């Protein structure tokens, strides 16, 4: 049985924000991650504020500038299957299709997917680690086969669990936020928190703030996007290694774009070395080989996750190959 909490489902955004200003109040999107965290008592919650009564947070709409606005409550299944997303931003549709299992995708929302808690088993278990306000991290000398090879700052070694976040970051999306101080927009690439900045929070949402939507810019000319996830089994599983590519092609040449890794770091990890290796080039064998070396050049594996080095090389090689053939 879960610990006790009060529950409210407001009808307006303003009321929801008000309810969230109470101590120990938390947003309920689809509830798939929240209920697990409540049951495992890794969050201390007094009030659950369901945003499921907020109609404005549903659905996918085209924006005036030719982009898309995806409401926070749009389910992962809807993102994976939406015809416009599949056509213009296939990488995001592929990322969504790789999340969890079909029932979890039917229930989980895009907003919740971006705000979910990490899966480090010490964090999910009975360990009072740094991320829970304790004074040590158990990963470096423990069971660290699923932990980070980049970006830990030698503080906390989680890998960010979301499969949609790297895609949104690669596609240059923006996160729409509403809160006590009004509305604001944040680039998806700046939405998640590195341990060196603050170890006890995964997103830059301030208390009382709600992620209301994700905004995709109009696809630039020549855009191709993909997402690739490697995992231990085909049924639900988190990424061991993955990559979201959003590259603009000018003929055969890569004119620009972004490369963002999953399963790699505490935040979706932008790989500048891979971007530098491919931008301005055609994706021939030489370029792809160079990119596959570059992706792990500054990786810092732990005792049990060095297998991620050849894995990331392989993922980059195969995905660049795939995207080079439209």
């Amino acid at each position, binding site marked *: 049985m879960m610990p006790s909490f009060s*529950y409210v489902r407001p009808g307006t955004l303003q009321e929801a924000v008000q*309810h969230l200003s109470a101590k120990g109040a938390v947003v309920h999107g689809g*509830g798939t991650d929240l209920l697990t965290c409540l*049951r495992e008592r890794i969050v201390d919650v007094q009030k659950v504020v369901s945003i499921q009564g907020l109609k404005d947070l549903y659905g996918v709409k085209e924006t005036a500038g030719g982009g898309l606005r995806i409401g926070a409550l749009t389910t992962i299944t809807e993102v994976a299957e939406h015809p416009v997303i599949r056509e213009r931003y296939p990488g995001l549709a592929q990322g969504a299709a790789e999340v*969890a299992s079909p029932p979890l995708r039917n229930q989980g929302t895009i907003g919740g997917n971006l705000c979910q808690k990490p899966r480090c088993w010490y964090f999910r278990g009975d360990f009072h680690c740094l991320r829970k306000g304790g004074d040590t991290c158990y990963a470096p000398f423990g069971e660290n086969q699923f932990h980070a090879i980049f970006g830990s700052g030698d503080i906390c070694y989680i890998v960010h669990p979301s499969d949609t976040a790297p895609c949104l970051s690669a596609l240059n999306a923006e996160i729409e936020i509403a809160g006590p101080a009004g509305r604001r927009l944040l680039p998806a690439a700046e939405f998640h928190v590195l341990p060196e900045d603050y170890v006890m929070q995964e997103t830059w949402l301030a208390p009382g703030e709600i992620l209301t939507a994700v905004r995709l810019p109009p696809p630039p000319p020549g855009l191709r996007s993909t997402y690739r996830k490697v995992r231990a089994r085909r*049924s639900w599983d988190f990424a061991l290694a993955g990559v979201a590519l959003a590259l603009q092609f000018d003929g055969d040449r890569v004119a620009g774009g972004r490369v963002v890794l999953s399963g790699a770091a505490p935040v979706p990890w932008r790989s500048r070395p891979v971007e530098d290796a491919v931008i301005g080039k055609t994706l021939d064998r030489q370029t792809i080989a160079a990119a596959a070396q570059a992706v792990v050049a500054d990786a810092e594996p732990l005792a049990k996750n060095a297998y991620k080095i050849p894995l990331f090389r392989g993922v980059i090689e195969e995905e660049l190959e795939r995207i080079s053939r439209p």
Partner: protein
Amino acid sequence: MKKKQSIASDHRRGWSISRRGFLASAGTGAVAMAVSGRIFASPMGNKETAEMAPDVLSKITLHVNGHPHDLLVEPRWTLLHVLRETLGLTGTKEGCGRGECGACTVLINDIPRYACLTLAVEAEGAAVTTVEGLLDGETLGPVQSAFVEEDAFQCGYCTPGQIMSVEGLLRKNPDPSMDEIRMAVSGNLCRCGAYSHIFKAAASAAKNRRK
């Protein structure tokens, strides 16, 4: 009372709603009432609700297998808990209780979801279908009979969840490919490893349903 028939047929099928269980749950405030309930369309069709205090029973109406039920629930009770413990619908199983096994799969507005990760209060206004709801009177529904005919279980613990995932698939896609079938039940684990028979049952259910 509309509940009676489904209890009788669950008994016959061995889906074990005991009369005692039902009466016990009725005593804790579960009263099935024939409110003229219309089922809302997806997504959840949730209306706003005032704050419900912790540890206190609040009244909600759930639409389960076509019948409205006025129920008293705590905010922290899951839909799985209420289906089994309050409504006595024990066809829906608890395995892991954390979204990893699929034993608790039900349909909400025709879409498969895990009842263990759904708060009962969140299902208000939605149409919930459990494995008991697939019976047509005393007769098994097409997916249920296909599982029996294809011998698609051993211990049977995962079976109600598998059936609901297949039912959800066929409501959305009446003519699925084998890959689509495999994907549709990929959130339902079977410790007995009856997978190949489960896939076959799904394919034959699809065929029978289209007839």
